[in-house]
């Protein structure tokens, strides 16, 4: 887009260009192979029987009728998991962790959410499996559910886990509790900071459970051979994570598990947990046949990870000059049925955009009778930003201050220390705020009744972690790039671009392939905005390795010392003898006759963070008769560090905004009073459709990340952080009432107005 602001000084040949994606043709012609396409000789179909209750004791499970049903090959329950036959002594310190992990896969004594797997069947066909699953008799004693953090934190709340104690600053509580942990960050002197403030504002917020909503449902095919080799084909963001989880839960040697990631139809953090893989593997082990298990959309909603519903309180102190002096924040996040909400991330992100001298953040991880939460794009940050940015907006409104100007006065910059400790290196928040302030959208007056404008900022860490890449040189001068990062948002292209740039060859000469866990070194998930950053880095290092070997080979061919050979822009040449010169392609052709092929390899684990920031501007109009909000205009500004492939950066920014609009306006899990989800379909779980969205304008700011060879920061998470607060504030201005609960659906806005 024309308005992109490029601040990086380096000129690149391949990086920063909008190349065609290597997987594009397969995807648009329908040839790409997804998990549901997997076909194997003797393949059986699986079906999972799930709890109809949100909270119930499992008194007994009778599978006999299902087992003898014609066409059924295996039936499994939690009794088939290794955990069932391992003693507490054998497991030692591992006991609690493995118990929770096993119980998440298949419930043993208790069903903790509607949709919790109870048993599974493998049969000749899907119909037989479904019919047989219906024949399984489960005797439940239904218990009252605890559905929200507020409810679950009450002293008389129904307890989900009798043996869960609150871990509080390192100590365990004496009584069991639904609060799995309480963490706190503190900096400066909160009371002193509040004293220095001229304005102190405290507000309370709530947000609903929301789902990632990826188009492709979860699927898994497993084949456990008689020699113990377990092969899994699935839709996952992290094949190595699946390998570890399956090996762990099934007590199977990790080297005997091979996970092949198929093409993936979206994940957004929700395809990291292994839900079906251990079940498919158990069914295969028991039947001796390959087994495929698929989820329906309803199963996806009811039994895979939503992002947590939250209850939050934010108190900010500000001087009359608009400097934040103090922040006191309370965050209680739903973990779902098992501990592990992203409240820690929410707490670390809450104030990251600002230089706040005195702050205290308390975070609570609370179990409730809902599916266990999973990562969802910047886990924890959108909710926390909704609370903090809304309070900032209200303070700006009260003080008559421009919200961008206010943020500029307080913005984090190089050297600022975050509440939880880390000190920022060079970051681009100020540049984003300036770009927003100078944008035509922000300068254009917003006229007309029932309209409002909102602005908000957002942050995500963008951490590195492990990635591996192998690059081998082909005789025609192209290279094969082998990677373990599942391609969700165009990463084959962005990683190939970095390899091509480093090698000084054309983008089209790099052929990237995503492979199984036997065929490449450990690679962390595609998620956390880390792939273009870390796997890109691995590609750069593997390319450097290739270059080194190419230089050595040229030196050998020319019978000259290595030091005399240089490699510039894909050309090898002798430093002093102009006669000795070969292109990458010319040398590639000679490799086999001069010592064999060349493969560069790398394993990286970059430390430090890319630290991404974004600033969004939105205009809305609210129909005062119906409470319905229309998004009139939306602009997203974001520091990408270096946009390796600008189109995919823009795609990430727009996609994040779309999901954020969904959270802000209509998306929510709707439960009845028994804790059963009532809207587990795309008809009633209202994600935005194309007709609900304006064109989303993007501005890429490039403040190169000093911690990456090409300055990459990672871009996938940041754009979902600001929309909730930006839209909430815009609606507040349009209707003259503060929006403190999301979603701000028409019914809620109407209530606020009446």
């Amino acid at each position, binding site marked *: 887009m024309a308005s992109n602001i490029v601040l990086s000084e380096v000129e690149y040949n391949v990086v920063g260009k909008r190349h065609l994606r290597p997987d594009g043709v397969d995807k648009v012609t329908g040839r790409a192979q997804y998990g549901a396409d997997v076909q194997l000789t003797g393949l059986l179909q699986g079906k999972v029987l799930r709890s109809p209750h949100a909270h119930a004791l499992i008194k007994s499970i009778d599978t006999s009728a299902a087992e003898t049903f014609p066409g059924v090959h295996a039936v499994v329950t939690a009794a088939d998991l290794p955990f069932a036959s391992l003693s507490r002594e054998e497991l030692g310190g591992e006991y609690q962790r493995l118990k929770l992990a096993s119980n998440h896969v298949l419930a043993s004594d208790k069903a903790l959410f509607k949709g919790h797997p109870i048993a599974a069947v493998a049969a000749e066909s899907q119909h037989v499996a479904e019919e047989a699953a219906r024949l399984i008799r489960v005797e439940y004693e239904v218990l009252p559910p605890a559905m929200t953090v507020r409810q679950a934190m009450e002293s008389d709340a129904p307890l989900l886990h009798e043996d869960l104690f609150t871990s509080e600053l390192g100590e365990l509580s004496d009584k069991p509790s639904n609060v799995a942990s309480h963490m706190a960050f503190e900096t400066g002197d909160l009371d002193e900071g509040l004293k220095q403030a001229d304005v102190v504002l405290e507000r309370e917020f709530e947000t609903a459970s929301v789902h990632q909503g990826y188009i492709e449902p979860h699927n898994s095919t497993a084949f456990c051979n008689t020699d113990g080799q377990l092969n899994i084909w699935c839709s996952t963001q992290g094949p190595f994570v699946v390998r570890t989880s399956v090996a762990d839960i099934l007590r199977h040697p990790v080297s005997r598990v091979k996970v092949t990631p198929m093409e993936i139809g979206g994940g957004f953090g929700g395809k990291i947990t292994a839900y079906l893989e251990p079940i498919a593997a158990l069914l295969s082990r028991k039947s001796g046949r390959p087994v495929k298990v698929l989820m329906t959309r309803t199963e996806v909603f009811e039994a895979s990870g939503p992002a947590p519903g939250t209850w939050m309180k934010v108190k900010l102190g500000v001087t009359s000059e608009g400097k934040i002096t103090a922040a006191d924040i309370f965050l209680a996040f739903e973990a779902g049925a098992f501990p592990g909400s992203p409240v820690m991330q929410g707490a670390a992100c809450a104030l990251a955009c600002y230089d706040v001298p005195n702050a205290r953040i308390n975070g609570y991880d609370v179990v409730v009778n809902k599916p266990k939460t999973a990562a969802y794009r910047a886990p924890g940050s959108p909710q926390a930003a909704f609370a903090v940015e809304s309070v900032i907006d209200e303070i700006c409104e009260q003080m008559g201050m421009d919200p961008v100007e206010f943020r500029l006065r307080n913005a984090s910059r190089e050297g600022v220390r975050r509440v939880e400790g880390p000190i920022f290196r060079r970051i681009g928040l100020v540049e984003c705020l300036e770009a927003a302030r100078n944008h035509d959208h922000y300068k254009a007056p917003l006229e007309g009744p029932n309209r409002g404008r909102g602005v908000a900022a957002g942050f995500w860490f963008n951490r590195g972690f492990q990635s591996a890449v192998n690059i081998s040189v082909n005789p025609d001068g192209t290279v094969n790039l082998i990677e373990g990062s599942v391609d969700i948002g165009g990463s084959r292209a962005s990683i190939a671009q970095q390899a091509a740039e480093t090698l000084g060859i054309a983008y089209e000469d790099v052929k990237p392939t995503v492979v199984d866990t036997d065929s490449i070194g450990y690679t962390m998930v595609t998620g956390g905005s880390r792939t273009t950053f870390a796997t890109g880095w691995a590609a750069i290092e593997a390319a450097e390795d290739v270059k080194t070997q190419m230089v050595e080979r040229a030196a050998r061919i020319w019978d000259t010392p290595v030091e005399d050979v240089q490699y510039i822009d894909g050309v090898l040449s002798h430093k002093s003898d102009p006669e000795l010169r070969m292109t990458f392609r010319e040398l590639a052709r000679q490799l086999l006759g001069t010592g064999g092929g060349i493969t560069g390899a790398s394993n990286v684990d970059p430390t430090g963070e890319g630290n991404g920031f974004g600033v969004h501007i939105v205009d809305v109009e609210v129909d005062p008769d*119906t409470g*319905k909000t229309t998004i009139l205009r939306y602009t997203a500004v974001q520091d990408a560090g270096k946009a390796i492939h600008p189109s995919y950066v823009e795609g990430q920014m727009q996609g994040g905004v779309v999901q954020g609009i969904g959270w802000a306006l209509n998306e929510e899990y709707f439960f009845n009073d028994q804790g059963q989800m009532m809207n587990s379909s795309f008809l009633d779980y*209202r994600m935005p*459709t194309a*007709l609900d969205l304006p064109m989303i304008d993007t501005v890429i700011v490039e403040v190169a990340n000093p911690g990456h060879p090409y300055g990459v920061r990672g871009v996938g998470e940041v754009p979902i952080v600001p929309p909730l607060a930006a839209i909430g504030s815009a609606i507040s201005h349009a209707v003259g009432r503060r929006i403190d609960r999301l979603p701000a*659906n028409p019914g809620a806005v109407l209530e606020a107005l009446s």
Partner: protein
Amino acid sequence: MEAIEFTTPKTIDEAVQAMASKGDRARALAGGTDLLVQLRGGRRSADLVVDLKEVPELNEISYSPGSGLTIGAATPCYRLYANADVAANYPGLVDSASLIGSIQIQGRASFGGNLCNSAPSADAIPPMIALGAVANIIGPSGSRQVPVEDFCTGPGRNVLEPGELLVSINIPAPAANSGANYLRFIPRNEMDIAVAGVGSAVVLDASGQNFVSARIALASVAPTPVFCKAAGDSLAGKAVSDEAIEEAARLAMEDAKPITDMRGTIRQRIHLVGVLTRRTLNNAIKRARGEE
């Protein structure tokens, strides 16, 4: 595992015979946008599916100024709004036909199917009621006519006896100075189920300043679509004014008996009936005056 028989009759007689052969275990198939979803989801079951798309009378649209409009029961929505007579004379029906589902759904979904599915939220039914539509039914014991407002008897239930088929829907030719409009409220802009819907039809006098008659019907606010007779009758003979419209809206709200569920609350739905009644009446008046 369920085995389902499928048949494609070519005449009304064959269709009636097929339906009668299985009684309440037979289901007619028009566009299938309700039926197939329900069969797959286990919400309905059937031994025999009778495809109606090859019976000519069920797939025709005919119009004459004398007898009005006849819509074959299986005619998909897109053929309604693509039909010049319908577009010219029944914009209130086009409102509905062009908002059901999406372009893809409109290629299949029929008004007949919408009526026979008898969902409280059905978007085609209120404008049909407002326009005084009549359902033509045929069965083993002959044919009969039922006004659309009397057709639905509960959620998913209607006056059709086992073995009976809806053949067509007849809508009188528009009176002079008449206009109609259907609006529904949904939180998104497509692919949603009405939180509330209102269809209004008005006949004005030659001056365009006075109501001769009016009919108003509601969706999604009761177990069946609601015909608000009192609200429509309250306008007859009155001058067109905000007060008259307000009074009709108030009476329509009185007829709404909604429930609270994931799609909306009682309060919100009754409120929306008021809003949409005002809006549809005003739009219908504009159309009657030829202003739109």
